[in-house]
Every structure is written in structure tokens, then in C-alpha cells.
């Protein structure tokens, strides 16, 4: 085990030295110092293994100094495919080791569990910036994160309006109506097993279909503006919710159902006190799934025709003008909005279904 870890670090050191010998002149004083700091810290951790927490901190510090050094080199305008690759490789090895240390630390849980994917994400963005700037990749192809951030900052007004149009006006009403209708129909159908047996396969089939295809039809029925997009969202979210409600209502165990029978409980009492709570995990599964489907539906529906506002419009218009950084900025807004929606649903789920085995660490 240790040998494999050391091999990674040794590879990093070799690459680091290779970089210095090849392109040492590209480093300025501070950069060179950072780079050597990284080499020193890495050698230290190979020769003198430390306790887990210290080792993680050392590894992170090493990766950070390597990253700073490379960033400074780039800022000074140096290029060079081999050098950059060596540098990226070396620092990535060190970062990987840091992540390994962190993830073995995070076994105890707590905030460390979040730290690992967070650092990983930050590292990916750093590499992205490094590669796009260092290899001079045309921004039409893949813009660097710094440029995207700049465009985002300068287009906040436009993006804000797009957000309101797509997220607030199209997605949310559609989501609420679609999920609500799916739930209600699922409950109504619960009393008629014949309908259930018919609707479940049909519902499963329909949720697998490319629903976005009905967007042009919705435009024809409801016009260009947000109602047609909301209608697409309604249809997209209805079926997963219906299928999961039906499955959830059937989830109560046989013993629990017999228990209600021994209490001579009415249908309504059984539904409210036993079957609906047991159905909540399924219902939230659908709600989470629908939160991503709804956003996708609202945006893609706008590809089919929309007034000149909306995230989907912004994307297709920007693509037409080859303004790719703006496309990425819109995607960032959409991603943040989508994650926030999903996270909100997940939080509500956690508070309402805290009792479910998947949330309990004990079992």
C-alpha cells in the first residue's frame, strides 16, 4: 500500500525536476521558490511519514504551492506543451495523494466528507484554467473559467431576466402542477386496482419517451410565452410522479396492513396514518428526479420557440452567434439553480423521512 502511494509521489518529484531542467527560466523567483517548496514537502512526506492529519495538511500545502508556481508561470506568459504537461502531472499526483489522505480521514464523517469532493472540484477547475490558458485553446471551443466568470459578472442583468423567465415562470408552476397532478391521480387511482394495473405500465412507458418532442405542439396550443414551456414541464413531471406514487402506496408491508385491519380502520384512516407516510420515500424520489427533469424541460422547450428571453433562448442564440463564453455562463446559472432546487427537495426529504433506513447510520 505504502509503496504505491510513494510511487505516485516519486513520479511527481521526477516530473517536477524534469520541468525545472527543461524550462527553469520560465519561473520567476517566487514561482521557483513555490515549486521547490512543493518538492521539499513531498520528499519530506516520503522520507518521514507523518500522522494522518499532518500528512493531509502537508500534502495539501504541497499541492497548493505547486499550483501557485504554475499559475505564476502562466501569468508571465510562458507556453510550452511539454513543460505544462509535466507541471500539471506533477501537481495532480500530489493533489491525488492529498485527496487520498483526506478521504481516509473523512471516514469519521463530519465536514471532512464535504471537503474531499470540494477540493476535487476546485482542482478540476484549476486544471481547466491551466489547460485552456496554457495550451491556448480557442475560447470558442472551451473558454477558461476566468473568462466565464467575467462574462457572468458582466451579464448579470440579462441572465437574471432569463432566470426569471425560465426558472420562476416556466419551471416552478409546471413542477408544482405536474407533481401535484401526478400525486392526486395516483391517490385517486389507488382505490381502483384495475386502473392501477393499467396505468403503471403505460406510465412507465410514457416516462421513457422523449417528452420534449411535444414542445412544438404545446407552443401551438399555448403560444410562444412561458405557458407552453410550463405545459411541457407538467407533462414531463406528471408520469414519474404518478408511477412513484402508485408504487409508494403499495409499499406498506403486509403485517402493517393486517394491523390496520385488526383496528377496523377505515380506508381514509389507513391511507393517512400508514400508507402515505410509507409512500414518502418513493414520492421524494420522484420529486428529486422531477426537479432535474423540470429544468431540462423548461430550457429545451425554449429551443422550439420563445420570446427573446429565457435560458434556452440565451443558449441557442449565443450558439448561433458563437458567443460560447455566454453559453457557459448561462449553463453555470442553470447548474446552480438546478442544484439548489435539488438540494432544497433533498433537505425537505431529510426532515420528513428521517426515519427511513437509508438515513439512519445505525442500521
Amino acid at each position, binding site marked *: 500500500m505504502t509503496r504505491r502511494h510513494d510511487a505516485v509521489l516519486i513520479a511527481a518529484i521526477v516530473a517536477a525536476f524534469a520541468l525545472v531542467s527543461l524550462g527553469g527560466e520560465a519561473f520567476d523567483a517566487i514561482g521557483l521558490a513555490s515549486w521547490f517548496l512543493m518538492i521539499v514537502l513531498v520528499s519530506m512526506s516520503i522520507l518521514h511519514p507523518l500522522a494522518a492529519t499532518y500528512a493531509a495538511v502537508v500534502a495539501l500545502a504541497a499541492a497548493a504551492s505547486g499550483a501557485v508556481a504554475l499559475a505564476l508561470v502562466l501569468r508571465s506568459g510562458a507556453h510550452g506543451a511539454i513543460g505544462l504537461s509535466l507541471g500539471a502531472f506533477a501537481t495532480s499526483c500530489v493533489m491525488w495523494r492529498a485527496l487520498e489522505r483526506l478521504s481516509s480521514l473523512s471516514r469519521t464523517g463530519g465536514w471532512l466528507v464535504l471537503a474531499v469532493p470540494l477540493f476535487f472540484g476546485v482542482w478540476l477547475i484549476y486544471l481547466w484554467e491551466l489547460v485552456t490558458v496554457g495550451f491556448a485553446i480557442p475560447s470558442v471551443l472551451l473558454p477558461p473559467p476566468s473568462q466565464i466568470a467575467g462574462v457572468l459578472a458582466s451579464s448579470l442583468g440579462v441572465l437574471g431576466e432569463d432566470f426569471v423567465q425560465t426558472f420562476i415562470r416556466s419551471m416552478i408552476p409546471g413542477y408544482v402542477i405536474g407533481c401535484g397532478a401526478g400525486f392526486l391521480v395516483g391517490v385517486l387511482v389507488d382505490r381502483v386496482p384495475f386502473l392501477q394495473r393499467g396505468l403503471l405500465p403505460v406510465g412507465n412507458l410514457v416516462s421513457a419517451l422523449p417528452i420534449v418532442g411535444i414542445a*412544438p405542439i404545446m407552443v401551438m396550443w399555448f403560444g410562444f410565452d412561458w405557458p407552453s414551456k410550463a405545459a411541457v414541464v407538467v407533462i414531463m413531471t406528471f408520469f414519474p410522479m404518478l408511477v412513484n406514487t402508485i408504487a409508494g402506496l403499495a409499499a406498506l408491508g403486509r403485517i402493517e396492513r393486517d394491523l390496520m385491519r385488526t383496528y377496523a380502520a377505515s380506508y381514509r384512516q389507513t391511507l393517512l396514518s400508514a400508507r402515505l407516510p410509507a409512500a414518502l420515500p418513493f414520492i421524494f424520489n420522484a420529486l428529486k428526479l422531477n426537479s432535474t427533469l423540470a429544468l431540462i424541460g423548461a430550457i429545451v422547450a425554449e429551443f*422550439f420557440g420563445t420570446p427573446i428571453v429565457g435560458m434556452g433562448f440565451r443558449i441557442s442564440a449565443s450558439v448561433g452567434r458563437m458567443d460560447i463564453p455566454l453559453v457557459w455562463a448561462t*449553463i453555470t446559472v442553470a447548474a446552480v439553480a438546478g*442544484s439548489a432546487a435539488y438540494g432544497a427537495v433533498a433537505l425537505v426529504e431529510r426532515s420528513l423521512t428521517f426515519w427511513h433506513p437509508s438515513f439512519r447510520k445505525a442500521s
Partner: protein
Amino acid sequence: MMMDETIGTAPARSSRRRTRREGSVLPVLAVVLALIVIWYGGAVWLNAASVLDRYERAGRQGWSTSELLADTMSMERPVLPAPHQVLSELQRTVVDVPVTSRRSLVYHGWVTVSSALLGFVFGTLLGIVLAVGIVHIRTLERSLMPWIIASQTIPILAIAPMIIVVLGSLGFVGLVPKAIISAYLCFFPVTIGMVKGLSSPDPMHLDLVRTYNATTAQIFWKLRWPSSLAFLFASLKVAVALAMVGAIVGELPTGAQAGLGARLLSGSYYGQTVQIWAALIVAAVLAGLCVGAVGLAERVTLYRMGGRA
């Protein structure tokens, strides 16, 4: 006490499938029949306004209900085409036309399905590789999994246009860009399902195999892989449907000439409602066929593994 399975994750309970299928043929038919009736009703209701409009402009004084009904169901550009209109359009573009012609929906369907299937294969392979990595390398699990889950909140379909255009400017047109979109949509359910499946063996089984001093590879091929197959097929069914969606959406942005998405787009530009519906039906049927094919493969595999078919 209660099942903690949720839909779309754990595999179907195959032992109850036969009885359930026997009981569900009739209800499904009944529901489909009811839907067709509602469809006809909707067509009449939605088209009536424009038919009455037309009567007024033509100066007709009296009209009988049966005339109205007949006219609502045979409009050129209906708000909602009646089922038989769609059927005759399907007949026209599927049956009556040679498969290689550009007017054939079979041709367009093939264009879409081929890129969907290519993307499906890539996405599945990527998903399986990622899942194997995640299950065996803990660092990968801790750092990558949250991002994989987060990736689904990024509406990839929304950046389909960009991918198409960017790759187009690099010289990749046609099949490959659409396949990439489909692959991106596919890999997520496969990854999630396989991670669940590969980690599904009972700790008891894992302990047993360790007492045999089995290597990681042996444990993988003899224990983890067979246990994951049920999960794999459940994810494949979701993935193949998503691949179809990806291929269709990939045809939208650049005004592609071929494919079902292109037909949808041109139908919407020229107000050809019946064309839109026909393309949708073909897309639905193809998606259903793909899912059915995966289901068939699933049953064959599980049967050969001793599952109760």
C-alpha cells in the same frame, strides 16, 4: 419491515412478474382504449373553434353536428390531429414510401436511433468503467461521486446545441456529436446503478470469498459482477430511453436535415401538426422497442443465471 427500494433503482421482483403481467394485459388495453377515446374527444373539442371559424368565413348558415365532427377530424392543419389522421400520415411516410427515401420516417428514425445506440454503448461503457473505479478506489468514490450526482443537475440537454456547434466547427458532424450527447445522458444511470450493484453483495459473501484468499479480480468477476447484473439492466432501460432523447435534441440546434428531431423541428416551423405527431409516435415506438430489447436481453440473462423468469 418495509421495502426500502425505490423506483428506478432496485431491479424488478421477477417472481411476481408473471402473475402481474397476466393481470395487467386487460387493464392496459382498457387504459389505452380510454386514452384513444379521450384523444378523439380532445381533437373535436380543440379543432371545433377553427372549423367554426372557417364556416363563418365561408358564409355557411347551418351545419349539422356530424358535419362538424367530420370536419374537425380531417383538418389540414389541426390544432390536435385525430388518431386516424396520424395513422394515415404514418402509413404515408412509413409504409408507402421506400425506406431509403428522405421522406420515409423509417429513414429518419434510423438516423436518430443509430446515433442514440452509439451513444448508448459509449455511455454504458463509461458508466461501467467509472463504477468499477468508484467501487474499488475509495478516494475516487469520495471525490467523484458527489460530482457525478451533481452533474445531473446540469441540464445537459441545454448545452446540446453548443456541443453540436463546437464539434461541427472542428469538423465532426452527423453521428458523433449526437452520440456524445446521448453518451453523457446515459452514463449517469449506468454509473449509479452499477455502483449500487457492484457493492450489493452481502458482507457475508465477501467474507467467505476472502477466506478463499481470492484476488480482487476474482472477487470482481465471480461475485460483484454477477450480483450487479440485475441493477445493470434496470439502469440500461433508463439509459437507452435517455439516449433516444439525447439524439433527438441533438438534431434540433443546427437545423439538421435528417432524423426525427429534424422532422419535429420542420413540422413546427411549417405548422405541419400531423407531421409532428407522426414523428413523435415513431420516436415513442422506437424508444419502446429499444427498452423492450433491453428487457428481453435482461430476461434471457437472468433466466440463464437461474432467476425465476
